[in-house]
C-alpha cells in the first residue's frame, strides 16, 4: 500500500499510465471469451479463424445455426505432478466454449472446418438466396 501526500502530483502519474495502457488496446474489438476470433467476410460467406494451440482437433465441436457459430473444445491440462516446481504458468488449459454472433445467416449445411498447428479455420457459406444480386442500371 502506498500512501500519497494529498497534494502530490505523482499519485496521478501511475494512474494515468495505467489508463493509457488500457486505452492503447481499444482500437481492436475486445472480448473476454476464448478463443479470440478473426472474421473475414464478403457477400458470399465468412471465414472465421481462431488460435487454439494444443487443442485436439478430434474432440473439437463446431456447430452453426442461422447466424450463430459455436466452437467447443478442450485444451490439454498439465497434471500437477509431484516434484514439479512451476516458474511460469501463462498458458490456458481446460475446456472452452464460445458462441459467436455472425453478421448474417449462413447455410449450416455447408460449413467447412480445419485445424492445423493449433489454428482453427472455419468457412461458412451464405445461403444462395441471401446473396445480394447486383442490379444493373440501364442508362436511357
Amino acid at each position: 500500500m502506498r500512501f500519497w501526500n494529498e497534494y502530490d502530483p505523482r499519485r496521478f502519474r501511475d494512474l494515468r499510465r495505467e489508463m493509457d495502457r488500457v486505452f492503447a488496446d481499444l482500437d481492436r474489438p475486445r472480448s473476454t471469451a476464448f478463443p479470440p476470433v478473426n472474421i473475414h467476410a464478403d457477400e458470399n460467406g465468412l471465414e472465421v479463424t481462431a488460435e487454439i494451440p494444443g487443442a485436439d482437433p478430434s474432440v473439437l465441436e463446431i456447430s452453426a445455426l442461422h447466424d450463430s457459430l459455436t466452437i467447443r473444445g478442450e485444451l490439454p491440462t498439465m497434471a500437477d505432478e509431484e516434484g514439479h516446481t512451476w516458474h511460469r504458468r501463462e498458458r490456458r488449459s481446460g475446456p472452452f466454449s464460445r458462441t459467436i454472433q455472425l453478421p448474417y445467416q449462413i447455410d449450416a449445411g455447408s460449413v467447412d472446418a480445419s485445424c492445423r498447428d493449433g489454428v482453427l479455420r472455419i468457412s461458412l457459406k451464405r445461403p444462395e438466396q441471401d446473396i445480394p444480386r447486383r442490379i444493373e442500371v440501364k442508362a436511357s
Partner: protein
Amino acid sequence: MSKTDTSKTESSLSKREAALPEGVESTHAGPEYLPSTDIYETEDHVVIVADLPGVGPDNVDIALERNLLTLRGRVEQNPPSGDRLPYSEYEIGDCVRSFRLTGEIDRDRIEARTKNGILTVTLPKVGAASRRIEVTTE
C-alpha cells in the same frame, strides 16, 4: 532460471509484443509477439512449453548462444479471401522469446518437439543422475 523479460504474466487478451534491445530492429516488416509460456522444473529437467499457434515443425527455430536460449516461430500469413469486413480480435505474427539459462543445463541433450501448435523444449540438468550420492550407515 532467471528471465530476460520482466513483463508480468497475466491472462491478457492481447498478445504482448516482443521487445528488442535498444536500437535493434527486426529485418522483416511484421510485429513479433511473446508466446505464452509455461516453465516447470523437475528433479532432472527444466521444461519449457510455449504456445506457437500456426507454427509447424519446419518453422520453429531454437538457438542457443552462450547462455541465451531463443525460441522463434514463423507464422505463414494466409489472409483468407473476402477481406471486405475484417473483424479482428487477435493479431497474427511471428513469435519470439528468449530465456537465460543457468549453468546447470546439459546443452547437448536439449530436446524439442511440436504438436498442434505447442512447442515443448526439454532441458536436462547436468549430472542430475550422478549427483545422487549413496549414504550408507555403519
